[in-house]
């Protein structure tokens, strides 16, 4: 049987009823894709399927992804630039996920050099904008080097509607580093303002509301860091109002893409509340996301809320 068939069987069975019993299908798909990679000499279709399969295999799978991307990039066959870009990005990202930060920084520097030579400026932002990868630079004491590249790229790439998404992700990552890792609150405020300016370039932008709620999550983090609880409460209420408005909008349209976005917003805001140990307040948001979307990470966060609340760790309940 083909790896794709086995993998689809695994996905269907697991989506219907998550169970460890389905792992045998995943293992069989993994074994089969190795054979197919060799037989096809790493065609992009095979590589992308292998990447998906390996993503469900934990750390072992992430190591397999590293070997996969290196093999694909080194294979002596013609490759499209966008596929090489994807493989390079995945190589860097999986090194970050495995906390191999020294190797990750070397690869990311090499990747940026490659991208500047072969790809348009909009793609340079994508090389650097990921937050998980950026944390690696901080952990290795190279935050200043990361910010030097950030300032250079954010200033040299001409802002357009096409690169708005990438610019926001990049500014968002910089904001997170400044708040959570560098404790540079005044600089974080500047980046939050930049974030706000970018999302307000076009109020009709399809991603406007999604990023508006994400902007609020950074305002929550900054006001928490500053102990500005009045602003914190005001921002929580604003985020809740946006989410409720979007839920009502979904109820009138039944647009499944809109529902996914609302669930993401509920999850993001719930996560902010967890950092403040406001489990009871976060739970209805996660419950909505679980009921309508149900990703693994939302289940994990909901488990934190259940345990934190039950163990009497809820800060808001304790203070009220």
């Amino acid at each position: 049987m083909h790896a794709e068939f086995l993998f689809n069987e695994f996905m269907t069975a697991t989506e219907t009823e998550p169970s460890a019993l389905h792992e045998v299908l995943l293992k069989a798909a993994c074994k089969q894709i190795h054979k197919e990679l060799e037989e096809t000499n790493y065609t992009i279709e095979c590589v992308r399927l292998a990447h998906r399969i390996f993503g469900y295999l934990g750390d072992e799978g992430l190591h397999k992804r590293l070997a996969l991307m290196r093999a694909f990039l080194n294979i002596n066959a013609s490759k499209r630039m966008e596929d090489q870009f994807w493989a390079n990005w995945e190589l860097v990202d999986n090194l970050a996920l495995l906390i191999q930060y020294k190797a990750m920084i070397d690869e990311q520097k090499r990747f940026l050099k490659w991208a500047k030579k072969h790809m348009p400026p909009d793609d340079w932002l994508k090389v650097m904008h990921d937050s998980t990868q950026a944390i690696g630079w901080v952990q290795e004491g190279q935050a200043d080097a990361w910010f030097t590249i950030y300032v250079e790229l954010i200033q040299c790439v001409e802002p357009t509607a096409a690169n708005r998404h990438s610019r926001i992700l990049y500014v968002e990552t910089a904001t997170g580093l400044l708040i959570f890792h560098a404790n540079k609150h005044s600089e974080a405020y500047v980046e939050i303002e930049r974030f706000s300016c970018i999302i307000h370039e076009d109020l009709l932008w399809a991603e406007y509301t999604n990023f508006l709620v994400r902007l609020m999550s950074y305002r929550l983090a900054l006001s928490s860091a500053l102990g500005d609880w009045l602003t914190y409460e005001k921002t929580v209420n604003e985020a809740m109002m946006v989410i409720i408005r979007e839920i009502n909008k979904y109820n009138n349209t039944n647009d499944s893409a809109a529902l996914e976005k609302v669930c993401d917003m509920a999850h993001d805001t719930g996560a902010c509340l967890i950092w403040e140990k406001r489990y009871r307040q976060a739970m209805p948001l996660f419950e909505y996301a679980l009921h309508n979307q149900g990703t693994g990470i939302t289940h994990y966060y909901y488990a934190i809320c259940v345990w934190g609340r039950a163990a009497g760790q809820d800060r808001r309940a304790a203070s009220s």
Partner: protein
Amino acid sequence: MRSVYGVEQRDRIAALHHLRLAETKVKGNGGLRLRYKHMFLEQEEFSELWEDYEFLSAFLG
């Protein structure tokens, strides 16, 4: 019924249930699946459970 942590049994069961689902579900879980044990063992809220066999066995990895 209360457990040794002073937590109601139903909350313990609910937390276990959601950790198991985090570990096994596929939706939005590419790259994260089978890696929740690391997160669990670093999550401050779960610190009293880090040696709890039933919770540790909720993870496949």
